[in-house]
């Protein structure tokens, strides 16, 4: 390889990429006649990638026809570094969805059972003057207790595990209290949504029907 050609290639821009798991260490880019080249980093303008690649291949051929011309794009290489994190994130999304769905099914069943079991009580309360919203909240709030207990257990465990995982990264976010607040509110919201259908149905029922003795 002649000096002018190499210099021409190097005239482009070289960057150093580090995984976020490592700190960015001091960097040396060297230009040395005696150094045997393996890879060079080249910055091209985005719209002209095709032309740039064709040009580079031509340069490579003229310099040494027997040398294979291979290339990778730096953004693809970069994303490869996080492939395992991306897979873990997708998997945990899928499993979280399945877990939430199954627990909602359970909660729905439980709400149905309780509403059925308390039909008489609901009828009596309506006759005594309970309003529909009053009965809905009476039936729904009892399901918030297990949800609250679940949160009490889940939050410390989640905090510990997330903290542990984050320690692998040199550059990381802090786990803030509001993350847990949002998670908690979402949990309560989903639970109430699941339960409220049964509660409203039970509360709207005609008390005469549920109090019939015959």
């Amino acid at each position: 390889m002649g000096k002018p050609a190499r210099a021409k290639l190097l005239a482009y821009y070289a960057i150093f990429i580090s995984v976020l798991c490592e700190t960015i260490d001091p960097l040396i880019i060297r230009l040395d006649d005696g150094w045997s080249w393996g890879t060079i980093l080249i910055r091209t303008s985005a719209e002209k990638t095709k032309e740039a690649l064709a040009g580079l291949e031509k340069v490579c051929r003229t310099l040494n026809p027997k040398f294979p011309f291979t290339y990778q794009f730096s953004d693809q290489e970069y994303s490869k570094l996080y492939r395992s994190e991306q897979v873990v994130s997708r998997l945990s999304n899928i499993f979280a969805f399945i877990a939430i769905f199954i627990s909602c099914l359970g909660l729905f069943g439980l709400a149905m059972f309780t509403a059925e079991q308390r039909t008489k009580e609901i009828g009596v309360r309506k006759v005594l003057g309970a309003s529909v919203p009053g009965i809905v909240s009476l039936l729904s709030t009892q399901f918030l207790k297990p949800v609250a207990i679940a949160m009490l257990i889940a939050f410390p465990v989640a905090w510990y595990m997330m903290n542990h995982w984050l320690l692998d990264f040199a550059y990381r976010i802090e786990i803030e209290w509001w993350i847990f607040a949002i998670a908690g509110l979402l949990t309560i919201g989903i639970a109430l949504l699941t339960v409220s259908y049964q509660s409203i149905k039970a509360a709207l029922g005609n008390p005469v029907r549920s109090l019939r003795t015959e």
Partner: protein
Amino acid sequence: MLELKGIYKWFNTGNNRTFLLKDVDLSVKAGEFISIMGPSGSGKSTLLNVVGMLDTFDQGEYHFLHESVHKLKEKQRSALYKQYIGFVFQAYHLIDELTVYENIETPLIYQDVKGSERKAMVADMLDRFQIVGKKDLFPPQLSGGQQQLVGIARALIAKPKLLLADEPTGNLNSKQGEEIMELFKELNNEGVTIIQVTHSEKNAGYGSRVINLLDGMIA
């Protein structure tokens, strides 16, 4: 106090219309003690439920105090009956998970009576029916007669103008039944208007007027 005019209630099965109540006229003055009698399926309970606003009707007019019930929305109706009407059921319909005290207190909670006031009112009621010693027991721990006493105490706690009773002695033995009827008579003498559904001529005898129902019509 209340007046029903041309009340019809029906349900449709295919092309047939079955009448539960047919052209019922009824007017009740304050202070009356009325017994509704009739064979099973004659519409006694339905009539009582209509009077108590727990059930709707399909045609006719219903005036209660100064309100036209047939024109009211569900919410207003419920506000009206919880203020003026007390219910006593054959099967007591106490809430098994609550103590005697809490059962009697429940209507007051739904009428937004203050805590200290509730306490005094419930204490009065327990005293009056001599069930102070039972206030922390749960309904299943009581005899039928005692449960019905609690049921009546609960119906009276909010000082209703009208007491509706659907076979109040139906599940009781004759002695307990007699006590309950004596109590009704006493309440009536104190000015509570009472409408009861009953099968027994003897119980009807406690009342001032008997209404006979047959096939949804007043005979």
